[in-house]
């Protein structure tokens, strides 16, 4: 029953010292929904261990427990022993892929998502659906009522898609407005380019305004998170190598991203390629340069916007920003930097929203149940806007708000700053 020995698999020290204290159950969103040991971090560690030690087979059900994990990292953070159940769950997905590869993942992550040009093709039907006015038609005729609730939620989650992906519009070099003080590489993520182009356009404007010459390589491939999430660590590594080589050519001081998920993955490249002699140093050098947009902006002298944003704003911490990157003060500071912003803390702001990339599609009920808690908290703040620097979180929050018919706008913190600058220009 034991696994073939030439696999990449978790090391014994990753699970051996789990003392089964159960502390991680307290913070696990999936445990708190189902209240079963099977859906808990301690349970996932036990299942991984029992499989790796040959006591349990890697059945579809066992693998499913690994896929049901939201990768929110809350368990990693709280475990007093230093066990990382979230990492184990991802590694077990990889083990399963090595034993029983599913071919479609090659196509999806190796071809479609990895290559920006192809991804465009993949979202083409979506874009036609929107820009052809079909979306309006569907709305006006209340056709969405006819769709099952699930589809309606998915449809409602989509932002207005840009006509063309930002990657094709954004110049490869954007000059600094005034004297150029920093040479900044911009890692334009897939979701940002295809779904939230306005936000990334704002990111580049704000950077340029603050003395940055922004280099946006057009050929970047996916950061690797989706591939890793679906057990294709091998593809994620290939993406990493490609992106590293690409950015080496740009000779930038820092590499900025406005996607929490991309940021967390890019910062991991060093660790991911640690056992590849040819890459280890280059990967570490790359990762050391990566900054979330808020992290970078709050580390340089930032121009104070003269414009105001009059709104009650709250903030949801993306798991991949707060826990993976320990960036949580900066986005708050960035928004409070803007006059007029009435900032309120969201209770349990760092509790996962349930998005986890594609969980709303793959684990609809769990994802929604986790979202409910977020929505209760959001409601208690009375905020008109909720900011969050992650496309996945933004889509998930939008779904929650639509389902509850709340009047709250979802924004990226950077958009607020961009608008504050713009408000100033308008008034001049």
């Amino acid at each position: 029953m034991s696994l073939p020995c030439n696999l990449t698999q978790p090391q014994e020290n990753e699970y051996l010292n789990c003392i089964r204290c159960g502390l991680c159950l307290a913070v696990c969103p999936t445990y708190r929904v189902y209240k079963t040991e099977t859906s808990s971090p301690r349970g996932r560690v036990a299942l991984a261990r029992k499989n790796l030690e040959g006591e349990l087979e890697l059945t579809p059900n066992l693998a499913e427990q690994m896929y049901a994990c939201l990768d929110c990292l809350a368990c990693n953070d709280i475990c007093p022993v230093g066990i990382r159940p979230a990492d184990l769950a991802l590694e077990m997905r990889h083990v399963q892929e090595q034993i029983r590869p599913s071919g479609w993942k090659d196509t999806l992550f190796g071809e479609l998502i990895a290559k920006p040009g192809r991804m465009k093709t993949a979202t083409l039907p979506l874009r036609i659906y929107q820009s052809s006015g079909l979306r309006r038609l569907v709305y006006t005729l209340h056709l969405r009522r006819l769709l099952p609730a699930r589809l309606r939620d998915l449809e409602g989650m989509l932002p207005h898609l840009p006509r063309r992906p930002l990657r094709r519009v954004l110049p490869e070099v954007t000059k600094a407005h005034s004297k150029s003080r920093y040479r900044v590489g911009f890692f334009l993520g897939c979701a940002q380019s295809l779904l939230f182009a306005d936000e990334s356009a704002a990111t580049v404007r704000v950077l340029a305004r603050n003395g940055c010459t922004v280099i946006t390589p057009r050929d970047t491939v996916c950061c690797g998170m989706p591939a890793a999430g679906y057990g294709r660590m091998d593809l994620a590594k290939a993406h990493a190598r490609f992106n590293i080589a690409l950015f080496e050519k740009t000779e930038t001081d820092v590499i900025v991203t406005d996607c929490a998920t991309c940021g967390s993955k890019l910062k991991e490249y060093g660790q991911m390629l640690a056992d590849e002699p040819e890459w280890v140093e280059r990967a570490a050098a790359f990762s050391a340069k990566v900054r979330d947009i808020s992290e970078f902006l709050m580390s340089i002298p930032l121009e104070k916007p003269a414009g105001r944003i009059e709104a009650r704003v709250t903030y949801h911490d993306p798991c991949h920003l707060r826990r993976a990157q320990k960036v949580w003060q900066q986005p708050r500071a960035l928004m409070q930097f803007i006059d007029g912003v009435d900032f309120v803390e969201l209770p349990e702001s760092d509790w996962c929203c349930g998005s986890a990339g594609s969980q709303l599609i793959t684990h609809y009920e769990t994802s929604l149940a986790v979202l409910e808690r977020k929505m209760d908290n959001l409601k208690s703040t009375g905020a008109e806007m909720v900011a969050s620097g992650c496309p996945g979180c933004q889509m998930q929050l939008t779904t929650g708000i639509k389902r509850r018919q709340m009047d709250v706008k979802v924004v990226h913190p950077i958009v607020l700053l961009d608008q504050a600058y713009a408000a100033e220009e308008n008034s001049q």
Partner: protein
Amino acid sequence: MNPTLIAELVKIVGKDAVLITPEDLAVYSYDGTFEEHCPDGVVLPTSTEQVSQVVKLAAREQIPVVTRGMASGLAAASVPFSGGIVLCLTRMDRLLELDQENAVVHVEVGIITADLQAEVEKKGLFYPPDPSSIRHSTIGGNIACNAGGPRCLKYGVTGDYVLGLTVVLADGQIIHTGGKVIKDVVGYDLTALFTGSEGTLGVITEALLRLTAKPKFARTALVEFNSIEDASQTVNAILKAGIVPATLELMDHTAISCIEEAMHLGLPLDVEAILLVETDGQEETGVTREIETAAEICTRHSARKVTVAKDETERQGLWKARRSVAPALARLAPNKLGEDITVPRSAIPEAVRRLKQVSAKHGLPIVIFGHAGDGNLHPNILFDKRDPQQWAKVEQMVAEEFAIALDLGGTLSGEHGVGTLKRPYLERALGPVSVEIQKRIKRSLDPQNILNPGKVLPD
């Protein structure tokens, strides 16, 4: 488990509340110890009525029923060694009524203790028992083990707050004990009987708990000592002076360095022992005066340094550290066995001295921390269970630890309970008469021996 039985269970609790896959059984095989044994099925009821029907079914089929909360137990009490049904109450977690007038709360016992505490605190009320596992244990588990915590010194243990219980008996009958009254001398105290019964006498499904007013102020001091003897003499001096701190916690050198390694709080690494002293109350001046007096006494008893936490953040930091001692030890070795022997307070220095001897004799580290105010010590042996030689030593060491406790006029367990791990030592601790009486109580309540069989009492 046979398919007809599964079908019957599904009929009672619904399909998603009966778990039978090998994966489910595997993860319901353990608790907070290293022991494990798979059940035949797991049932997650959502009401007392469902529990009653499940137990009736089990009684009819003579299948063991092992009640389980969050399995944070440290005595292998919820490990289903005889198979059967694990009855997991985590989905019975509603707060049914918060009676502010009488300061009583009525809950389903699957509620997480910290959640209950947070809910009542919203209304200015206070549920004092604070086991370190407060965020990962249930009220039901706390009652079934009569859990204690650092605050017990001043506020008492879980049982001191239980006014009444709803219990499902071994034949499925439902009984209510006690009520919202503080005084009650009608009949035997069945509430007390079920409290601490570790799932062997009945399944507790609901509880009425007494609440108090939340203390408005608390001050915490961290006191450093060059010897454990000095530290424990100080404990006695503080209590003799008429001060009842909310907590008086002791940590030895290894425990301190372990936390420091895990949490980087800036704890001193060159001291032999630390005392954590907290005073609390409704009035700021009183609370401050008490902590100052305690600090003076410490200094007089050769404390090396006394630091009073400046603010709430610092205070929370200290408590977070204390709560994470036990788990942080696991960084040092794959396994740890933590006992919770209790001795008369004055015997603490002697107990510590003898425990160190045991450690030296067998060559395995013992880390000591505990609730010095109640003489409740947690000696933790660190080892690697995969090494049969070490395991043999550990078993020997545990027996010696218990002998020390009993020799010094103490007992086997102050809070974790007997479960499976301490069962072999029960007769020596209690004597044959007491054990025989307890066996009769068990027999009269559970004649078929289906409720958590093989736990607590010897065969």
